[in-house]
């Protein structure tokens, strides 16, 4: 039987800061969102991941049935300490489950997702819970900080009446220096600040990976209804997508950056949730995930059934609270 997504959940914190607020405070903003999500003082990737997981489990899933847990974050609350026990206790999952934890780059979410799929195929039980959450930090004087936002997505995977099934995948890696990195012991993301250099790796690697996936599946861009290209910003996905031969209508449904900022490892999976919200049975989706340094994963899905859920784009507009720049500095503990 095919393995796929049984249910999904998402979470965004209620705090926001606008690009205009950055410009007012700093004179410029190094990222092109119009507003971005900000984790509250008492939130982190773990609490946000729990919120998304509860949303996914609320679709009538018994937590006791989860036999596989996969976690991904580039900004976990501890650099070293297994979080599976925390997640299990916080969600009331059974303790005799197999778990994996990922976090070396923003590709982590894709790694967790595909690892869970393959472990299910390999006989590691019937249902997996994948939780992906990020709220990264950097020095606020550094333009790389400006795009960093917060959000989380969770998926229940299995064989029981999936709403979308995974068809195939492709993956590539490449040595790429100086692009979005964080040295051991540091809390702050950095890059060398040469965008034309660092975005080249994204453009080439993403295009090659998606091409490889389409070749493997013997399909062309027109055979897919949607393509999600990891949003490191809101320009590159359109650029790469169009170069590959996809039309704007296939790309835009998966674009959230404008209203969220860069949600790190969670980003392509929040986009996937936004696409699943509107997808119809039979439609095909490509998800292409990127991690700096660099590595990609792309996988394709076929939608089996429509979902009846509050759409993510609607949820994104609930209960928003706008921060001024000083409040932002305080909530991020920069000040």
């Amino acid at each position: 039987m095919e393995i796929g997504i049984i249910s999904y959940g998402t979470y965004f914190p209620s705090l926001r800061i606008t690009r205009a607020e950055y410009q007012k405070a700093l004179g410029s903003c190094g990222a092109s969102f119009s507003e971005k999500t900000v984790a509250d003082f008492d939130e982190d990737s773990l609490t946000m991941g729990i919120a998304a997981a509860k949303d996914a489990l609320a679709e009538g899933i018994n937590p006791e049935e989860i036999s596989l847990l996969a976690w991904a974050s580039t900004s976990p609350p501890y650099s070293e300490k297994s979080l599976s026990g925390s997640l299990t206790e916080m969600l009331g999952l059974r303790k005799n489950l197999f778990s994996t934890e990922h976090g070396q780059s923003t590709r982590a979410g894709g790694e967790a997702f595909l690892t869970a799929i393959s472990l299910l195929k390999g006989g590691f039980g019937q249902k997996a819970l994948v939780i992906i959450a990020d709220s990264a930090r950097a020095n606020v004087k550094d333009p790389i900080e400006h795009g960093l936002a917060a959000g989380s997505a969770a998926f229940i995977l299995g064989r029981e009446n999936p709403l979308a099934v995974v068809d195939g995948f492709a993956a590539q890696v490449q040595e790429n220096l100086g692009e979005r990195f964080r040295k051991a012991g540091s809390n702050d993301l950095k890059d060398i600040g040469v965008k034309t250099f660092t975005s080249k790796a994204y453009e080439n690697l993403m295009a090659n990976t998606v091409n490889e996936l389409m070749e493997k599946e013997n399909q062309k861009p027109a055979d897919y209804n949607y393509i999600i290209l990891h949003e490191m910003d809101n320009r590159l996905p359109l650029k790469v997508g169009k170069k590959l031969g996809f039309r704007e209508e296939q790309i835009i449904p998966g674009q959230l950056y404008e209203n969220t900022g860069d949600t790190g490892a969670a980003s392509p999976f929040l986009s996937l949730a936004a696409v699943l919200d509107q997808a119809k049975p039979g439609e095909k989706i490509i998800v292409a995930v990127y991690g700096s340094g660099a590595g990609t994963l792309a996988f394709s899905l076929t939608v089996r059934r429509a979902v009846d859920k509050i759409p993510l784009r609607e949820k994104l507009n609930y209960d928003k609270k706008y921060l001024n720049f000083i409040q932002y500095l305080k909530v991020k503990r920069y000040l």
Partner: protein
Amino acid sequence: MGAHISIPMYQRAVKQRYRLVGLKCQNCGQIIFPPKAGCKSCGALANFSEVELSGRGKIYSYTVIAGAGAPPEFAEEAAYRGSYPVVLVALEEGPRIIAQLTEPLPPEIKIGMPVEMVLRQIYTEEDVIRYGYKFKVVEEKKKLAKTIAGIEKQ
């Protein structure tokens, strides 16, 4: 003055702190939270079963802790928030518990407002993050964006 809770003590109670696991008295049906050695309704000292509470309830009463009034473990948060609300929540299942009310905060807190439990960082001591329950007001869907501190959406 703060009330230091050692890590072993905190860990013993993670089930109740992370997801509101209480006790149900098999003798009289009373729900007990936080778990105690005996039933305050019928006095039974044995025969309890564990029960996970829904996390839904209503504000029974509330207060606002001013910055300087915060215990030391909440000093950092108080410095950030200025002041913060603490609510007494009447849970659906009966017990009343005290916790912080967290964002998104309503413009005005009112007794009777429906709330639900969320998991948040409570405080950090000895570099160990203490997670636990807080509550947030359950708002009507499609509520329009609000503003704080006079910052209008640009």
